[in-house]
């Protein structure tokens, strides 16, 4: 059975010896030393650092060993199935890493003369065009660093649009379904909007009646994920778009689930005015334990003038950075975006082409439906909201029955899955499913690994009836057993840095 490395690796601060060093910076030439002299004579007395920072002192060897051991106590897509729903944890092609680590990109400064960066500008320009084509939008901006950052750009564009129309004082509300990702309401609030929640109907889709009741002259827009977080396509999308647009609002596409419809259908064609993409989900770039990702935003022609500066333009011969956009909202961050990540997306699209991207979508949907079929047959699990209806790229099962019959919750199942060397699904989301297990296998896992997952789920649910203790006390095979997460946030114990920990001790 799976057994994760358990190094019991101490904090880096308690390793090493005073005086050891892991790296030597380039030396200062003697002539410079002689001419410039002692830096402490240059720095005014009140601005000198008086005591050294308490950083660890380690040799290069110890640093490598410490972090290698840490890496062995971590689980990635390369370790096995990582079926976190709405996170699209797919395989990250190695060639893309190789390309993104070339000096020809690593060593390029963002303010270099345009003539010296034509290569990367061309790549970014083409990537914008491809992403616009894939989403059916008019223009794409690569600046946002992550999906939520793209959402904030999207809601800021909605703000700019209504402001220019002189309606921002009135249009204070953004509507989100009750199944929406938490980032949607949070991004709406960041751009200064109030959030109105509309319930889902018995099919798991936006309730049309509720939406009609929710829109008014106060509506700035609707944020929608399609397929939604249940993995169900919002089949009434045409009517939804009509209702929102007739009320004078804009339609925002949360691209977290774009993987399901790549090359099959496009948000722009469905009437969405703004759409973000998660490069680190749909376009196969690694998530890095929480970033860096990239969250480009595509917009309709009408909204293009509000996009952040600079825009990359092509005059037929050369690429330029254009800052002259009077209606631009400004900037979401410094420079142009997470370029190293975007470069990987460029290579990813090249590796797949149109047919390949369509295949990505189709197999991701096939895999999800295959797992849904196998899992809903397990005693204790159900597939709420139309058990027989096809899902798209993900499915949400409920462990409600299992919990009421055995006391074993979705959380317990998740922890027990880790013992099998499988990552757990997203749990307790979407909020409209009790004891939710949200499963997204993606297209990059083979049938054998999906079968292994289904089999592990079956065994765990069986164990819930026969030997619940084993599940309740899981995980057993990970680097550490179940952690006290409440303690980490309790004011008495809270240690958010080594410094705070020392103080508490």
């Amino acid at each position, binding site marked *: 059975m799976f057994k994760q490395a358990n190094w019991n690796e101490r904090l880096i601060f308690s390793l090493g010896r005073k005086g050891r060093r892991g790296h030597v910076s380039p030396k200062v030439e003697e002539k410079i030393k002689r001419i410039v002299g002692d830096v402490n004579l240059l720095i005014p007395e009140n601005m000198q650092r008086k005591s050294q920072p308490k950083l660890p002192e380690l040799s290069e060897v110890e640093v490598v060993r410490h972090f290698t051991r840490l890496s062995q106590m971590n689980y990635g897509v390369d370790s096995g199935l990582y079926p976190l729903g709405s996170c699209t944890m797919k395989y990250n092609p190695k060639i893309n890493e190789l390309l993104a680590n070339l000096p020809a990109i690593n060593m390029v400064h963002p303010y270099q003369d345009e003539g010296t960066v034509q290569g990367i500008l061309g790549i970014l320009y083409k990537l914008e065009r491809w992403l616009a084509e894939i989403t059916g939008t008019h223009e794409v901006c690569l600046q946002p660093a992550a999906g939520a950052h793209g959402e904030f750009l999207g809601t800021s564009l909605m703000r700019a649009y209504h402001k220019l129309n002189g309606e921002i004082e009135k249009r204070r509300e953004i509507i989100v379904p009750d199944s929406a990702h938490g980032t949607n309401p949070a991004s709406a609030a960041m751009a200064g909007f109030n959030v109105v929640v509309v319930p889902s109907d018995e099919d798991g889709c936006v309730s049309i009646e509720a939406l009609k009741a929710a829109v008014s002259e106060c509506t700035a827009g609707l944020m929608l994920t399609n397929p939604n977080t249940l993995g169900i396509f919002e089949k009434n999308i045409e009517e939804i778009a009509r209702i929102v647009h007739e009320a004078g609002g804009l339609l925002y596409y949360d691209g977290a689930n774009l993987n399901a419809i790549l090359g099959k259908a496009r948000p722009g064609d469905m009437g969405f005015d703004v759409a973000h993409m998660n490069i680190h989900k749909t376009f196969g770039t690694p998530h890095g334990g929480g970033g860096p990702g990239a969250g480009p935003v595509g917009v309709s022609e009408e909204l293009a003038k509000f996009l952040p500066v600079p825009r990359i333009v092509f005059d037929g011969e050369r690429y330029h950075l254009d800052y002259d956009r009077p209606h631009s909202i400004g900037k979401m961050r410094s420079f142009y975006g997470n370029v190293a990540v975007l470069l990987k997306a460029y290579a990813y699209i090249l590796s797949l082409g149109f047919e390949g991207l369509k295949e990505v979508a189709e197999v991701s949907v096939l895999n999800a439906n295959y797992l849904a079929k196998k899992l809903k047959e397990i005693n204790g699990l159900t597939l709420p909201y139309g058990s027989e209806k096809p899902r798209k790229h993900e499915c949400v099962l409920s462990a409600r029955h299992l919990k009421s019959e055995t006391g074993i919750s979705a959380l317990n199942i998740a922890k027990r899955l880790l013992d099998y060397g499988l990552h757990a699904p997203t749990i307790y989301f979407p909020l409209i499913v009790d004891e939710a297990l949200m499963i997204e296998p993606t297209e*990059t896992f083979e049938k054998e690994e999906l079968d292994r997952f289904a089999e592990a789920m079956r065994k765990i649910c069986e164990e819930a009836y026969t030997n619940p203790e084993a599940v309740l006390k899981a995980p057993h095979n990970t680097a550490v057993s179940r952690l006290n997460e409440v303690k980490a946030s309790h004011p008495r114990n809270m240690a958010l840095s080594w*410094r705070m920990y020392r103080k508490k001790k």
Partner: protein
Amino acid sequence: MKKLKVSADLVLILTVNLLIKRSHPYIPNSLPEIKKEMMQEIGTESIDELYADIPKKYHLRKPLNLPEALSEFEVKKQVEGLLSKNKTCSDMPVFLGAGCWPHYVPAVVKEIVQRSELLTSYTPYQPEISQGMLQALFEYQSMICELTGMEVANCSLYDWASALGEASRMAARLTRRNEILVPKIVHPERLATLQVYAEPAGIIIKQVAYNKETGQISLDDFRNKISDKTAAVYIENPSYLGFVETQVDEISREAHAHGALFIVGIDPTSLGILKPPGDYDADIVVGEAQPLGNAMNFGGPLLGIFACRDDLKVIRQMPGRIIGMTTTLDGNRQGFCMALQTREQHIRREKATSNVCTNEALCAVASAVYMALLGPEGLRELGETIMRKANYAIHLLSKIDGVEAPVFKSTHFKEFTVNFDGTGLSVKDLHKKLLERGIHGGKDLSNEFPELGKTALYCVTEIHSEEEIERLATVLEEILVRR
């Protein structure tokens, strides 16, 4: 015999091509027979049936205008070919900084962040199987605290600019006030980002004038502008134009006397030798940790620093992921997990302190490795090396006729202003001539700070050699003499 071999190769190639067509290397289940097995299990005839719920009118009818799929070799060739049109910092000395800086990234850093268990993991929602990432991020947070003199740091925001945006909103929430004072000398991109973050929250940005001689914040103007409406006072150290702001104690005192928070933006490479903001009572520290072990990559990803004091009221308003120390439920073993998630969007939704989820975690790991490699002595040496080399460049450039470096009479760390008013050439023209001679000049400030005349911002770090710095001075002189 030879002929036979050729045809065997041909068959092999054809077979491989066919296989790729049928089964993409990234998509194991794209093999038709597996698809069939799986469809049988589901009870569906075709994959199209699984898409039947998408209204017909939205089904794509024709192929998208995308490139033809390429093999790995072809992808590599094409991308390398395009990238070879770039000129890099190893092709020519580049004297650019201004928010993204050329520094050396040790081989160890690259090696660790390519470890696939770290690289291909998600945000550590299941801490028991993610201890490696969690501990590395906790160590990053801890080292940032040591360096800045603060007590709590989050595990990263997107960059310095967005961290400043978040800080302004946090200050407004904490003080229930709506003005932020920002120096007139600030990076325009940071200011533009701050505006996007601040405006919807009703925060008004007021800029404080600077002393024309020294560049330092004008305390008179500062005292005129600070009031009981001020949520926060923001300064940068070193400033955008490279000099050290020395009035930090006075500014901090005044800000606090008015009940405002004191936000300080930093370049962490300076903190081996410069007084850390914790020592002048900063409430929030923001900054850019790209120089700590992350490549420039044409400006992204970057790594936003966000740190504050150990005050529960303040901590509860922090944006972003924070990793905390805890124990196993049985209390036997120390471990790490995400802390204070009730601040975050997936729980608090529209009432969250920020919408941030994906941040720059792997860049934070890179910085943790970098800081661990250098240690306290290495960081001090790095700071000294940078400062000496930058000041050597100042020394040489200021001797050139018609050139003034720096514009401000203050201490400069790694960046400095160079004024060309006395040369009769515009910065643009001069830089063009420099580039023709294989040197990339600094950032042209002529449009950003017209009051400074024909001025550029130059940056020198540990990677610039004596020879390169001297070449810059010599070539500049040559260009000017030749006129």
